């Protein structure tokens, strides 16, 4: 049951329900993440020493691509069926409603990726001391990716084939996230203090939570104004 009160909680609940109704589609980034990971040892080398060296970076790149894959659809169906227009003229704070949608998006993409990542880590021979930092950095990092990606999705929502443009727009913004995310895991594997890079990710997430919803609200108003 959906509550009629829209706003943050309303959009969060509605988008989770919508995701539940389209389970197969929503699970595709996760399936992509798991399937590609099984190919890595085949493509590179089953040698665990070599895999362990590459694992932090590879897992992070795949998580990033999986998130990007799901970002394009964030506002697309709302745009097509007119819900987005209703959102723009609802007497609620647009940025908060948008944040509700993004939290729902993270719960169905970033969170599952984070949960399966230790499994992928083990498959790629990531040393055990890297598993907790991997999960922590992915939890913070994928939330950043969802927020940043949503800005791109909002800007490209009215384009029929916006996928490529979306990638070009957001990948430069994803760079700091992947640098510090994989650095945290690498530091842990090397026996260094990994809380430093993680703290930077946390700072990026705080900034993104504060700024991205405002940017998205502006982008949606801009895009609908034609």
């Amino acid at each position, binding site marked *: 049951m959906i509550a*009629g009160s829209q706003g943050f909680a309303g959009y969060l609940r509605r988008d989770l329900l919508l995701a539940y109704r389209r389970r197969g589609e929503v699970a595709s980034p996760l399936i992509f993440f798991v399937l590609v990971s099984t190919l890595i040892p085949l493509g590179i080398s089953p040698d665990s020493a070599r895999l362990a060296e590459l694992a932090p970076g590879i897992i992070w790149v795949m998580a990033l691509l999986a998130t990007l894959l799901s970002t394009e659809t964030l506002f697309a169906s709302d745009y097509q*069926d007119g819900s987005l227009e209703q959102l723009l*003229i609802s007497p609620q704070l647009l940025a908060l409603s948008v944040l509700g949608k993004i939290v729902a998006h993270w719960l169905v993409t970033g969170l599952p990726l984070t949960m399966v990542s230790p499994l992928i880590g083990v498959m790629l021979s990531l040393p055990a001391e890297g598993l907790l930092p991997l999960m922590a950095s992915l939890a913070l990092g994928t939330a950043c990716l969802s927020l940043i990606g949503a800005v791109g999705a909002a800007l490209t929502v009215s384009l029929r084939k916006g996928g490529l443009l979306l990638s070009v727009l957001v990948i430069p913004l994803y760079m700091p996230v992947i640098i510090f995310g994989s650095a945290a895991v690498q530091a842990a594997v090397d026996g260094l203090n990994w809380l430093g890079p993680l703290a930077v990710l946390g700072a990026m997430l705080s900034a993104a939570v504060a700024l991205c919803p405002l940017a998205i609200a502006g982008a949606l108003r801009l895009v609908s104004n034609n």
Partner: protein
Amino acid sequence: MSTPPLITVEQLAFERDDCNVFKPASFNVEAGDIVQLEGANGAGKTTLMRLMTSALQPTSGALLYKGRPINDCRYEYLDSILYIGHQSGVKMTLSAEENLRWMSPASVSSAEITQALDAVGLRGFADMPCYSLSAGQHRRVALARLHTSKAAVWYLDEPFTSIDKQGALALQQQLEIHVQQGGAVVLTTHQNLPLDGLRKYIVESHTDLGVQP
């Protein structure tokens, strides 16, 4: 001092590619009015309506609500309007009841939701996902909002599309009741509506302004 009209449209214009979409529009909407926006296909009826809902920002001109500029009372205004566009915002994977619940104010009880769905002829379809309903039934799901909404001003873009004769009659009656209760309706349709208090505003497209052949 006379009270200002509910909604005042003052020289409202919207440019697309540096051209006005329609001739700048000026008219008032008072409580009790049904205003029909009329014009050829592509004349800009939907654009004018979206400007009036404040979904679009006008290039020039002003929109006043009870005599105040819309930007000074935006949330108050948005709280008092209801807009059903071509794309009505009905989610295909949700049921009719879930859709209506979502689009209705939080204070609406589930009994009222059921009543509203009965009133638009969707009794027995409430729990079916909307992708299994027909085009006319989708429109009826959207129009059920008129039964649950507390909004004073209704903006209806082609509300009669894919609605059958009985549905259209029921909708006309509902519009009349709404304006008798002090509401106002702005709608676009190509039908001639036999409604009391109906006023027409002709939307003249930009191309009509040019040189006559």
